[in-house]
């Protein structure tokens, strides 16, 4: 018997005795987090469109609809309806215009919708409201919120698509610029060439984007709002860094998607636990 085979036998015996003595076992587990909304009454979902604003660099309505539809297709049990994206801002502008000129708003279906000119500014517009007719701030968006409460409008859309769950809302995607002290880890080498990482505070100009989507879930059978949720995320980069708006949009939406999907479907959190003997 060679020395090597003796060593192999000894290590095998040791391994066997160690495993026999083991009193714990680490196992992977998936903890289900239940959905916030009960969507069992729906088999189909229509991501209708969003009233979007902020920067002109990204069409937040189109991009949000595309992104949510693709996520829902792969990560929920609902069938996603492929339909034209509703020009919701224009429809809402129409409603605002109608209510300004002829008193109470008249519900209008998507089929009747015609593209209209940008919303005329109300005289004595509040500070923070844009003057170019475009949606730039939250205050601009607030003017259009009434469309989401228009039960007849959403019921009509629901009937058109055979009573699905309707996902709509607003998306504000705005550029941000800020300056201030930021703590960063800086590498330093001493005389002997040893590396250390030291936290240092430095004054920095930073720019980036903030996104505030408000997701509204509407029952296509009744037109009533079932649930709504507003989330805000922000990303800031070094002022010298040139990050395209679309990249920032997807970076921010990546953070928001789990919350959105968690509203409609059960999410699983992966982790490990220790079983004991």
């Amino acid at each position, binding site marked *: 018997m060679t020395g090597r085979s003796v060593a192999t036998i000894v290590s095998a015996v040791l391994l066997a005795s160690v495993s026999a003595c083991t009193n714990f076992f680490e196992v992977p587990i998936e903890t289900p*987090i239940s959905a916030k909304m009960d969507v069992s009454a729906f088999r189909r979902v229509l991501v209708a469109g969003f009233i979007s604003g902020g920067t002109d660099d990204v069409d937040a309505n189109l991009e949000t609809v595309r992104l949510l539809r693709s996520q829902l297709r792969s990560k929920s049990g609902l069938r996603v309806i492929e339909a034209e994206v509703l020009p919701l801002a224009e429809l809402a502008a129409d409603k605002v215009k109608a209510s300004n000129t002829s008193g109470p708003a008249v519900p209008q279906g998507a089929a009747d919708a015609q593209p209209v000119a940008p919303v005329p500014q109300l005289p004595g517009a509040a500070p923070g409201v844009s003057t170019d007719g475009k949606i730039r701030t939250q205050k601009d968006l607030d003017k259009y919120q009434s469309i989401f409460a228009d039960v007849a409008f959403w019921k009509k859309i629901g009937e058109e698509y055979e009573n699905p769950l309707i996902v709509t809302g607003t998306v504000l995607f705005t550029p941000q610029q800020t300056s201030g002290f930021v703590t960063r880890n800086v590498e330093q080498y001493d005389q002997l060439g040893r590396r250390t990482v030291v936290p240092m505070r430095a004054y920095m100009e930073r720019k980036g984007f903030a996104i505030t989507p408000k997701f509204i879930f509407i029952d296509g059978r009744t037109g009533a709002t079932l649930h709504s949720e507003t989330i805000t995320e922000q990303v800031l980069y070094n002022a010298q860094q040139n990050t395209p708006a679309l990249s920032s949009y997807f970076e921010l939406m990546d953070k928001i998607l789990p919350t959105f999907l968690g509203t409609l479907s059960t999410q699983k959190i992966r982790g490990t636990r220790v079983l004991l003997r």
Partner: protein
Amino acid sequence: MASRAHVIVRALVFAAAVSVSTAPAWADQRSASKAQVEFGIKVAQNGLWKEATYRWEKAVEMDPTYAAAWNNLAIGYEHEGKFDEARQAYDKAVTLDPKNLLIRQNYDLFKEINDRQKRRNDR
């Protein structure tokens, strides 16, 4: 004096008899429970969590003082999304074996997820 010694001897004999008669029963309960726990671990490692949870439920029924069984049962409940039951089982495990760091670690990880779920529901 003699009668006092007699009483002491009788008490000792009685205590011995009690310990002899109960020790094997206790040992039997623990070993039967342990068999359920070990089978549960095996099936859980193969992904059969429902069966594993059933086994651990049996184990704690047989021996309610077995901390490891309560710990495993809590994990089984957690895997099924039964958060209230999981919390109760973890509480029991920690009460029975407060110095066990592995049980505490499992419980802390569970609490983190449970708190997140609560925050979501409160929003």
